[in-house]
C-alpha cells in the first residue's frame, strides 16, 4: 500500500504563494520551517510554565498556578518575562565560547529533528518539512547531538557538579542510544523503509477487526515488547525520571545546568522540553501510527498533538512517582539489559518478518 506521496509543507507554501524557482523554494522552506518551529516552541511554552506545573500539582495533591488569567494560563507570559529579566551570571573561569554555545546547541538539535517528522494534516496542509529516504536515521542523528551540548555545558562550566553531570550524560547516552536505535531498526524491518512517511503509512493497514472496528497495525500493537523497550530507552535518551541522572538535583545540584542562569537557563529548559516532544514525536511516528486516528485525514495533526502530549504526560507522571536509579545501575540496565533485549527483539522481528512475508 503506497499512496501517492503527500505534498510537503514547503511545496504547499511555494504553490500557494506562487513562489517560483529555486529562490522561491528556499523562501518557502524558510517560512515552513519558521511555522513548524513556532508550533513546537508554542508546545514548549505551554508545557514549561503551565502544563508541567498543573500536571505535577495534580499528581502531588496541590493547587498549581491559578491566579493569573483563566486556569492560570497567563502565567506563561509572566514566567517568560520573569525568566528573561533575570541577570545572566557568567561565573569566573568558564570556557567561552563553549559555555555560551551549549545552551544554543541543545534546543537547536532538538528542533532540527522536527524537520523530518510527519506531523499529519491540518486541513489541506501536510505538516512535514522534508521526507528524505533516511528520515529515521536522520532524526536520531539530530537528537543525539543533544548529548554534545550537555558535555559542552558540563565541561565548560568550571564546576565539579557540572562536570559530573556532563560525564553522566555521556555515559547515559552511550548506554541508551544503541538499544534505542536497534529497537527502532525492528520497526524498519517491519516497514521496509527508513522514510518517515513510509513508516507511518505502513501502520495504516488493518491488523484485525473487532466488532466492526478496524484496529490499525500500529507497531505498538504489533510488537508491544519493542514498544516498551523503545519507551524505556527513550526516557533515558531524553533524561527524564527515573533516568534524570545528568541533572539529579538532590545529588549533583543541577548537573550541567548548575552554572546557567537567565536566558541561557531558559534555552536549556526549552531544549529539554523540545527534546521531550521530539522523543514523543519519534515514538508516535514509529510505534503509534504517526498522525493516524479516527476521523478524516485532515485532522491528523490533532491526533499527533494528542500523542506527543500523552507522552509528555507520561514523563511527568514518572517524574512524580518513580525513584531515580543510580548511575551504575543505569549503566548496568543499559548495557546488560536493554542492549541484549533490543538485539533479541531485532532478531526475533527479522525471523518473524522473514517467515510471514
Amino acid at each position, binding site marked *: 500500500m503506497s499512496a501517492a506521496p503527500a505534498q510537503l509543507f514547503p511545496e504547499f507554501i511555494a504553490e500557494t504563494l506562487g513562489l517560483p524557482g529555486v529562490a522561491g523554494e528556499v523562501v518557502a522552506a524558510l517560512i515552513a520551517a519558521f511555522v513548524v518551529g513556532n508550533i513546537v516552541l508554542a508546545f514548549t511554552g505551554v508545557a514549561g510554565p503551565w502544563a508541567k506545573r498543573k500536571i505535577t500539582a495534580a499528581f502531588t495533591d496541590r493547587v498549581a498556578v491559578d491566579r493569573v488569567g483563566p486556569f492560570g494560563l497567563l502565567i506563561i507570559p509572566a514566567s517568560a518575562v520573569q525568566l528573561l529579566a533575570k541577570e545572566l551570571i557568567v561565573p569566573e573561569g568558564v570556557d567561552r565560547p563553549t559555555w555560551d554555545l551549549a545552551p544554543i546547541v541543545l534546543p537547536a538539535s532538538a528542533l532540527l529533528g522536527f524537520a523530518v517528522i510527519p506531523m499529519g494534516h491540518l486541513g489541506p496542509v501536510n505538516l512535514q518539512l522534508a521526507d528524505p529516504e533516511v528520515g529515521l536515521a536522520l532524526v536520531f542523528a539530530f537528537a543525539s547531538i543533544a548529548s554534545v551540548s550537555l558535555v559542552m555545558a558540563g565541561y565548560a562550566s568550571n564546576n*565539579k557538579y557540572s562536570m559530573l553531570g556532563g560525564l553522566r550524560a555521556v555515559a547515559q547516552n552511550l548506554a541508551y542510544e544503541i538499544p534505542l536505535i536497534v529497537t527502532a531498526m525492528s520497526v524498519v524491518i517491519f516497514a521496509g523503509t527508513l522514510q518517515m512517511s513510509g513508516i507511518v503509512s505502513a501502520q495504516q493497514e488493518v491488523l484485525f477487526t473487532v466488532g466492526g472496528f478496524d484496529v490499525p497495525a500500529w507497531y505498538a500493537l504489533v510488537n508491544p515488547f519493542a514498544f516498551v523497550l523503545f519507551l524505556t530507552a527513550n526516557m533515558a535518551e531524553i533524561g527524564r525520571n527515573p533516568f534524570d541522572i545528568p541533572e539529579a*538535583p538532590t545529588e549533583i545540584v543541577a548537573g550541567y545546568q548548575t552554572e546557567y542562569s537567565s536566558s541561557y537557563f531558559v534555552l536549556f529548559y526549552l531544549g529539554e522540553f523540545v527534546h521531550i516532544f521530539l522523543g514523543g514525536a519519534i515514538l508516535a511516528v514509529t510505534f503509534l501510527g504517526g498522525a493516524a486516528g479516527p476521523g478524516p485525514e485532515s485532522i491528523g495533526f490533532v491526533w499527533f498533538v494528542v500523542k506527543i502530549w500523552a507522552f509528555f504526560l507520561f514523563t511527568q507522571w514518572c517524574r512524580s512517582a518513580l525513584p531515580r536509579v543510580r548511575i551504575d545501575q543505569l549503566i548496568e540496565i543499559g548495557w546488560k539489559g536493554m542492549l541484549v533485549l533490543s538485539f533479541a527483539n531485532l532478531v526475533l522481528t527479522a525471523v518473524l518478518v522473514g517467515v510471514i512475508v
Partner: protein
Amino acid sequence: MSLEPLDSPDADVVPDRTPEELEALLGDLVVGRDDHLNAPGFVIRPDTVQETLSTLKSEAGYDHLSVVTAQEYENRYESIYHLKKFDDPTQEVSVVVPADKDHPVSESAEPVFRTADWHEREAYDLIGIEYDGHPDLRRILLPETWQGHPLSLDYDQNQPQIASLPAHVNPIQEHHKDAESDTMYLNIGPHHPATHGVLHLKTVLDGEQVVDVESDIGYLHRCEEQMAQNGTYRHQIMPYPDRWDYISAGLLNEWAYARAAEDLADIEVPEYAQVIRTMGAEMCRIAAHMLALATFALDVNGDFTATFMYAINDRERVQKLLEDLTGQRLMFNYFRLGGVVWDLPEPREEFFSNTRDFLDQLPGSVEEYHDLITSNEIFQMRTIDTGILPPEVAKNYGATGPVARGSGVDYDLRRDDPYGYYDELEWDVITEDGCDNYSRLLVRMQEVEESAKIIGQCIDLLEDWPEEERNIQANVPRTLRPDDDAEIYRAVEAAKGELGIYIRSDGTDKPGRFKIRSPCFSNLQTLPEMANGEYIPDVIAALGSLDIVLGEVDR
C-alpha cells in the same frame, strides 16, 4: 561485651553490679567518688581514661558511651563520661576525669569508644580541655579561626573574633593537594539540595565513588547550652528545647529537659499530665517521622515526588492536632516542670474525635507509602544494601533511635528506661536487621503505627478520666534552687534517638552546667562508615536515612 557475639545478647549477660562491686573491679583506677543522682561517679586520673573505660566496657558490659560532658570549675577542669548499657540503660555509671587547671590535658577515650571522637572535639572546642591521643583534635562547632573557648570561665566575650582563614593557616602545615592524584575533592553543602539544612560534607571522590567523607558541622550553632545556663529552671529554659530538633519534635525535646529537671528537683508529675505528655510526644514523633519519610523520598526520588507532598499532608494533620493541644505549630512550649501548661482543648469531645479520625486514616496512608516507595523495585534497588551500618559499629558510635534500631540494636528508652506513661501501655519496639537505608526507613514507618497505638490508648484513658482528678501540674515552687553541686544525666527517646540532658546545679536558680546529648550529633558521626566506598547517590540516601536536624546537631 565487645568480645561476645552481638546477635545473641542474652547468651552471656554480664551481671549487673553494685557501685561497690564496680569500684572493686576498677580497683586502683578509682581515686575518689563523685556520685551523680542517676549513677555512681568514679573519679579517675586523667591518664587512665582508656584503661578505665575499656574495663567497664569489656568486663562490666557498659557498651554505650552516651555523652561526654566537659566543664570548668574554679580549681579544675572536668570531663564526665556517661556510660550505659545497650541491654539495660538504667544501668549507668559516670566516669569523672578531673584535669589540671593550668594544663587541662586528659587521655582520649576515642580508642575505646569511637563516638568519643566528636564529643571530645566539642569539649575541646567549647571548654578547652585537650585530649591526649585523640586522632583529630580540632574545633568542631566553631570556626577553625575562633579565639578562646566560650564555655570556659575566663572567656572574654568582647574580644574581636575576626581572623580570616588565610591569616589562620599554619604555613608549615603539609599541603594535601597532590597533582598526581586521581581523586576529586567536592564540597557538598553547606548549601545543597539534599543536606537537610546547613551541613557541609567534604567529600573526596574517585570518579563517582566516595573515597572519604567528612562532615563539617556548626553552621547552626546557637549556644543553646549557654542560653540554658542563663535561664531559670522554672520557666526560662523550657522554650529552648523546641529549637533543637525543630522538625516538630518539640514536645519530645521538652520532655528531655523536663525529665532531667524534675528528677533533679524531685518533682512528682501527676498521672493525668503524664498521659497528656505521652500522647503529645507521640504525636510529635509521628510528625517528625513523616517529615523524615518525606525528605528521604526527595533524596531518592528527585525533586517533585508525590510521596513528599503526601507525607507532608499527613504531617499537617497531626500538626493541626498539636496546634489544638498546645496553641502552637512549631515552638510548642507546652510542658512545665511538674506537668503541662494547660489541659486538653475544649470541647474535649471534638479533640478526641479529631484525633480518632487521624488515627483511623493513618493505616491507609502508611499502606499508600508502602505502595509508593517501599514496594517499588527501583526504590528497593536504591536503598537495600546501601549505607550499611553494622550493629557493632552503630553501638560503638553511640547511634540510637531509628538508626540503631534499623541495625537491629533493640534499644528504646521508652521501654528500657521507662518514663511518662509508656510502661502502662501496649506497644512494641520496632527493629529491623537489614542495617541499610531501607531498614531505617521501615523502622520509621512502623514506629509511626506504634505511636498511633499509643495515642489511641492515651485518648481512651483521657476520655474516661474523672473530671475531679484532672490534675495537670504538680505544686512546684516559684523558684527552684536544687542542692548545690547536685548532678544528673537523664535521657528520653526523642524522634531521632536518645536525647539526654546533663545538669549540674550550683545552688542558684540557674544551672551551673547544662549539657545536651543530641542523638543527631552521634548519629551523624556514623556517616563515613556508611558512605565510604559507595556512590554519591548512596551518600545522599544514607544522609537522608540518618534523618538529622542540624538544629540539634549544632545546638
